C-alpha cells in the first residue's frame, strides 16, 4: 500500500547531507503546536512521560482511509504519536491500543513530505525499514512542511550520530502565500490587493474629496445652487396649497370675514407671478448647476486620470510584472471613473436628498404631526424593499452578463471554426449548443422579470398606502375643519417627493463600498514608489565607451522567495565593440540579464558597471538614451513610419530618418508605399509584415545611435530571407558598439566575440563558437546539434 512517488526511495541512512535550518529568518514561523481536544489530550498523556515537551501537535483533516476525518500528529522530544481517535491507525504493529501509533524518535530514519494530486503526505520511515504515512489536505501543506522540519531537529537531538536520511534533491518547501488579509484573515476577493473589509473607508473618502479642493469655489457655487434648487422644488406645492387655502377655497379664521372675489383674484395673480418667477429662476439655476457640476466633474476626471497615468509612466517594470495589463487599464479607466462619479454625482446627490427629506419632514410634522407620521411611515418598508430588490437583482445581473459572454463565446467559436464545424458535419450540434445557451439566457432574463414583477407593483402598493392614509385620515380631518384642503394637497405632493429618492438611499452604502474599493486600488498605485530610480547623487553617464562588467551579479524578482535566484554568480567582462552572444534554454535567464543591463530592475547582489561606473549611480535617462533595444516582437506605435523611427529622437531630421531606415534595410520598402515615410502604421494603418516591422524598429534603434545595443531574439520571428536582410542591417549596427544579443537561431551569433551559455541562471559555458562547439557534452554543442538536425543547415558546424 506504499504510495511512493518516483525518486523518493529512502536514501541510505548514512547520508551526510547537512540538515537545513528549519526556518528561514525571513519566512514567518508557522505554529505547529495546536491545542488538542480532551480525548486526544488524554491519549497523549497515557503514552508520554510527564517530563516530555511537546514539539509538534498537528491536526490532519484526512484519515488513513482517505476520507475526511480527524487525525493527529504529535511529537514530544522523545517520541512521535499518530492518534486517530475514530479508528485504527494504519500499519498497526506498533500500536498498543487502537487508534494510536507510537514511534520513538530515535528509531526514525526518514522524514519526507510529498505532494500528490489534491493531498499531501508525510512519510516517516523507521530504522526497521517500515513506513508510516500521514495524509493531509492541501490546506495543511505548509504546516506539515514546517512540522517535518521541526521533527527533523527533534530527531537529530535524540539520535547522537545525527543520521537522518535525506533526499538530496528535495526542494525546500516554501509556503505559498495565501490571498488572505493580514489583519482579519478574510480571503481577498479576486483582483484585490487589500481586504475590502479592512479598508479605512473614512480615510479613503477624505482623500477622494481632496480632489475637489483645488476647485472649492466651483463646488461651493454648485452646492449653493443645489440648495437653492431644492428649495425651489419644494415651493410649487406650497404655492398650490396657498392658492387653495387663500383663493380657491379660502380658509376663514375664526372671527374673520370671507375674502372678497377681488381679493381672491388678487391672491391668484400674485401666486401666478411668483410661480412664473420661480420657474424662470429654476431654469437659470439648473443651467448653472449643470455647468458648474459638469466642469467640476470633468476637471476631477482629468486630474485623477492624468495623475494616475503619469505615475504609471514613472513606475518600474517590477510593478507591471505583478499585474495583468487588464487590471492596470481598469484602474486608469474604470476606477478613476468610479471615484469621479462619487465626488461629482453621488456625494452631492446624497447631501441634497438628505436635505430635502429633512425639510419635507419638518414642514409636514409641523403642520400635522399624526398625519405626517402616518404618511411617512410606508417609507420604512419601501427602504427595506429597495434593499431586498438590489440584493436579489445584483447576483442575477452578474449571471446575466456571464451568460451574455458565454453566448458570445459559442458564437465566436462556431463562426471562427466554421470550416471545422462543416467539415465534421456538426451543424446540428452547434445549433444545440447555441440553443442551450440561449435557453439559459432566457431563464436568467425571466428571473429578473419575476423579481421586477414583484418589486415594482409592491412598491406601488406600499406607496398607495400613503395615499390611502391621506384619504382615510386626512380627508375626515378636512371635513372636521382641523386640516385645510390646501394642506391635504400639500401632503399628497410632498409624500411623493419624499418617497422618490428612497431607492437611491438604499443603495448608498453599496456605492460607498465600491468607491472605497476603487479608491483603494488607485491610491495603492499612486503610493507605489518606483523600485528603480535615480539616486540623489546620480551622475550623468558619460558617452559609453563600451566596457561592460558584471561582477558576481545575482538577481531575483520581488515575487520570489529569498534564496531562489533567476541569476546567480554572473561574472562577465565585455570589451568595447564586442558582440556578446547569450545562449541557453528558455527560462535560463537571458532576457533577465539584458533587462538588468538596461536597469529595468536593480540587481539583488553584485554590481554591473559600464566603463567603471556602477549603473545604479548614474541617471537612468542618461543610461537608457545610450542603449538601444530590438525585441523579438517589435512594437510600433500608431503613427507614421517616420514618427516611429524618430520615437527616441523626435527632433531627428528627415535626412537622418532616411539614413537610419536605409541602414536598417527598410528604406526600400518604405518608398514603395504611396505615402512613403508618411504611411500610417499601427492598429489602423497599413499592415506590415513581421520582418518589415522589425526593420523599422531596427531603424529606430539606429537613429538613437546607441552606444550599447541589445538584441533580444531580434530575428527569431521572421523567415530566413528576411532574417538575412535583418542580419545584414544588424551587422552594420554592431560596428563599433558593444552589443548583447540573445538568439535562438545560433547562426545569428556565429560572429560573436564571446558566447555565454546560461543554464538555470548560472553561466555554464563561455567561449567562442569554435571553442564551445568542440566541447564534449557541452550545452552549446547540443543546441547546435539539435538545430543542425532540424534545419539540416551545415553553416553552424562548418
Amino acid at each position, binding site marked *: 500500500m506504499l504510495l511512493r512517488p518516483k525518486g523518493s526511495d529512502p536514501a541510505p541512512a548514512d547520508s551526510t547531507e547537512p540538515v537545513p535550518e528549519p526556518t528561514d529568518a525571513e519566512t514567518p514561523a508557522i505554529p505547529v503546536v495546536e491545542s488538542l481536544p480532551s480525548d486526544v489530550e488524554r491519549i497523549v498523556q497515557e503514552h508520554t512521560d510527564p517530563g516530555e515537551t511537546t514539539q509538534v501537535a498537528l491536526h490532519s483533516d484526512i484519515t488513513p482511509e482517505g476520507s475526511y476525518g480527524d487525525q493527529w500528529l504529535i511529537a514530544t522530544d522523545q517520541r512521535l504519536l499518530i492518534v486517530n481517535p475514530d479508528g485504527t491507525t494504519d500499519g498497526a504493529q506498533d500500536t498498543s491500543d487502537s487508534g494510536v501509533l507510537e514511534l520513538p524518535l530515535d528509531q526514525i530514519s526518514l522524514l519526507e513530505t510529498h505532494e500528490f494530486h489534491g493531498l499531501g503526505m508525510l512519510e516517516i520511515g523507521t530504522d526497521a525499514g517500515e513506513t508510516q504515512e500521514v495524509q493531509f489536505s492541501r490546506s495543511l501543506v505548509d504546516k506539515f512542511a514546517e512540522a517535518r522540519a521541526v521533527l527533523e531537529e527533534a530527531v537529530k537531538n535524540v539520535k547522537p550520530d545525527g543520521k537522518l536520511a535525506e533526499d538530496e534533491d528535495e526542494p525546500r518547501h516554501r509556503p505559498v502565500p495565501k490571498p488572505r488579509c493580514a489583519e482579519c484573515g478574510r480571503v481577498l476577493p479576486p483582483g484585490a490587493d487589500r481586504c475590502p473589509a479592512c479598508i479605512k473607508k473614512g480615510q479613503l473618502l477624505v482623500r477622494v474629496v481632496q480632489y475637489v479642493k483645488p476647485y472649492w469655489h466651483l463646488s461651493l457655487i454648485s452646492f449653493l445652487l443645489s440648495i437653492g434648487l431644492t428649495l425651489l422644488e419644494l415651493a410649487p406645492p406650497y404655492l398650490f396649497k396657498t392658492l387653495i387655502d387663500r383663493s380657491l377655497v379660502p380658509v376663514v379664521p375664526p372671527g374673520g370675514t370671507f375674502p372678497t372675489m377681488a381679493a381672491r383674484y388678487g391672491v391668484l395673480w400674485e401666486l401666478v407671478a411668483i410661480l412664473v418667477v420661480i420657474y424662470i429662476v429654476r431654469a437659470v439655476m439648473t443651467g448653472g448647476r449643470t455647468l458648474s457640476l459638469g466642469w467640476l466633474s470633468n476637471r476631477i476626471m482629468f486630474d485623477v486620470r492624468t495623475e494616475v497615468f503619469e505615475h504609471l509612466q514613472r513606475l518600474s517594470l517590477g510593478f507591471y510584472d505583478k499585474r495583468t495589463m487588464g487590471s492596470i487599464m481598469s484602474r486608469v479607466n474604470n476606477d478613476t471613473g468610479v471615484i469621479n462619479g462619487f465626488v461629482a454625482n453621488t456625494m452631492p446627490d446624497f447631501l441634497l436628498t438628505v436635505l430635502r427629506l429633512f425639510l419635507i419632514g419638518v414642514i409636514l410634522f409641523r403642520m400635522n404631526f399624526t398625519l405626517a407620521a402616518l404618511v411617512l411611515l410606508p417609507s420604512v418598508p419601501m427602504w427595506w424593499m429597495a434593499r431586498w430588490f438590489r440584493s436579489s437583482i445584483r447576483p442575477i445581473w452578474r449571471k446575466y452578463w456571464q451568460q451574455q459572454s458565454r453566448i458570445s463565446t459559442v458564437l465566436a467559436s462556431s463562426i471562427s471554426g466554421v470550416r471545422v464545424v462543416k467539415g465534421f458535419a456538426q451543424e446540428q450540434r452547434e445549433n444545440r449548443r447555441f440553443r442551450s445557451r440561449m435557453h439559459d439566457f432566457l431563464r436568467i432574463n425571466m428571473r429578473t422579470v419575476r423579481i421586477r414583477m414583484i418589486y415594482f407593483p409592491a412598491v406601488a402598493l406600499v406607496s398607495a398606502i400613503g395615499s390611502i392614509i391621506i384619504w382615510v385620515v386626512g380627508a375626515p380631518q378636512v371635513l372636521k375643519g382641523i386640516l385645510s384642503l390646501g394642506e391635504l394637497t400639500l401632503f399628497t405632493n410632498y409624500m411623493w417627493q419624499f418617497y422618490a429618492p428612497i431607492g437611491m438611499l438604499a443603495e448608498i452604502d453599496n456605492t460607498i463600498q465600491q468607491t472605497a474599493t476603487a479608491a483603494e486600488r488607485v491610491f495603492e498605485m499612486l503610493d507605489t514608489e518606483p523600485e528603480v530610480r535615480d539616486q540623489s547623487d546620480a551622475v550623468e553617464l558619460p558617452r559609453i565607451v563600451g566596457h561592460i562588467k558584471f561582477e558576481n551579479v545575482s538577481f531575483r524578482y520581488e515575487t520570489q522567495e529569498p534564496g531562489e535566484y533567476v541569476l546567480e554568480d554572473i561574472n562577465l567582462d565585455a570589451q568595447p565593440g564586442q558582440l556578446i552572444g547569450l545562449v541557453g534554454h528558455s527560462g535560463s535567464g537571458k532576457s533577465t540579464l539584458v533587462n538588468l543591463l538596461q536597469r529595468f530592475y536593480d540587481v539583488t547582489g553584485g554590481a554591473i558597471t559600464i566603463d567603471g561606473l556602477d549603473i545604479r549611480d548614474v541617471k537612468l535617462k542618461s543610461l537608457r538614451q545610450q542603449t538601444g533595444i530590438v525585441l523579438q516582437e517589435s512594437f510600433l506605435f500608431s*503613427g*507614421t513610419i*517616420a*514618427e516611429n523611427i524618430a520615437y527616441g529622437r523626435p527632433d531627428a531630421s*528627415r*535626412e537622418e530618418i*532616411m*539614413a537610419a531606415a*536605409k*541602414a536598417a*534595410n527598410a*528604406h*526600400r520598402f*518604405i*518608398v*514603395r508605399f*504611396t*505615402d*512613403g*515615410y*508618411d504611411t*500610417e502604421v499601427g492598429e*489602423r494603418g497599413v499592415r506590415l509584415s513581421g520582418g518589415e516591422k522589425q526593420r523599422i524598429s531596427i531603424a529606430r534603434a539606429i537613429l538613437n545611435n546607441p552606444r550599447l545595443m541589445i538584441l533580444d531574439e531580434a530575428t527569431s520571428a521572421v523567415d530566413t530571407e528576411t532574417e538575412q536582410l535583418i542580419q*545584414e*542591417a544588424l551587422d*552594420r549596427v554592431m560596428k563599433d558598439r558593444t552589443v548583447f544579443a540573445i538568439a535562438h537561431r545560433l547562426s545569428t551569433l556565429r560572429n560573436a566575440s564571446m558566447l555565454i551559455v546560461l543554464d538555470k541562471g548560472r553561466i555554464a559555458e563561455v567561449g567562442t563558437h569554435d571553442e564551445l562547439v568542440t566541447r564534449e557534452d557541452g550545452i552549446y554543442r547540443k543546441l547546435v546539434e539539435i538545430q543542425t538536425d532540424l534545419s539540416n543547415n551545415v553553416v553552424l558546424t562548418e
Partner: protein
Amino acid sequence: MTPETRVAPKPNQLELLDPEAVRLVKAKPGWLSLTLEGDELEPLLVKPVRTFPLTDPEHYISLLDEEENEVGVVADPRTLESKSRRVLRSLLERTYFLPIVEKIHKITEDFGVYRWEVGTNKGDRTFEVRGRDDVRFVANGHVLVRDIDGNRYHILSLNSLDAESRLLLDLLL
C-alpha cells in the same frame, strides 16, 4: 540597362545626389531619364517618388530605377538646374494627385454614409465617405479622407480650415 553599370550607390547609405550634376528629361509617362554630369554612362530611366508626400512633398524625392532600386535622393528640387527642376516638378504634379481641401461646404449623413461637399485647390468636389474610419488624423495633424471609390483628399490641419468647416469636420473625427 543593368543597374551595376550605373551610378553605383553605396548599398546601404543614403545617397543624396549632387543637384548640380543631375540632368532630368522627360521619358515615357511616369518616368524621367537621368544623366549625371561627369558620368559618361547612357541615360537611366528613373521613377521619382516622394518620400514624405504629406508632411514634406517638395523635398527628398527618391529616384527609383526599373527594378525599384534607389538610384539616389534629390534633397531639394529647387537646387536643380532649372530645366530639370521643371521637368521633375511637372511629373510629380502629374503622378501625385491629392487635392487639398480648403473649405467644407456641407456634410450630410444618411445611414452612416457621409456626403461631403468641399472646395479643394483643384476645384469643387462632392464625394461620399463610408464610416468614420475613412477620415483620420495622420502624421501630426494632417487629415486624410478616403471616399468610397478610394480617392483621397488631404486636409493640411484643422487650423487650415475656416471655423465653419472645422466645426463640420470636428464632429467626424
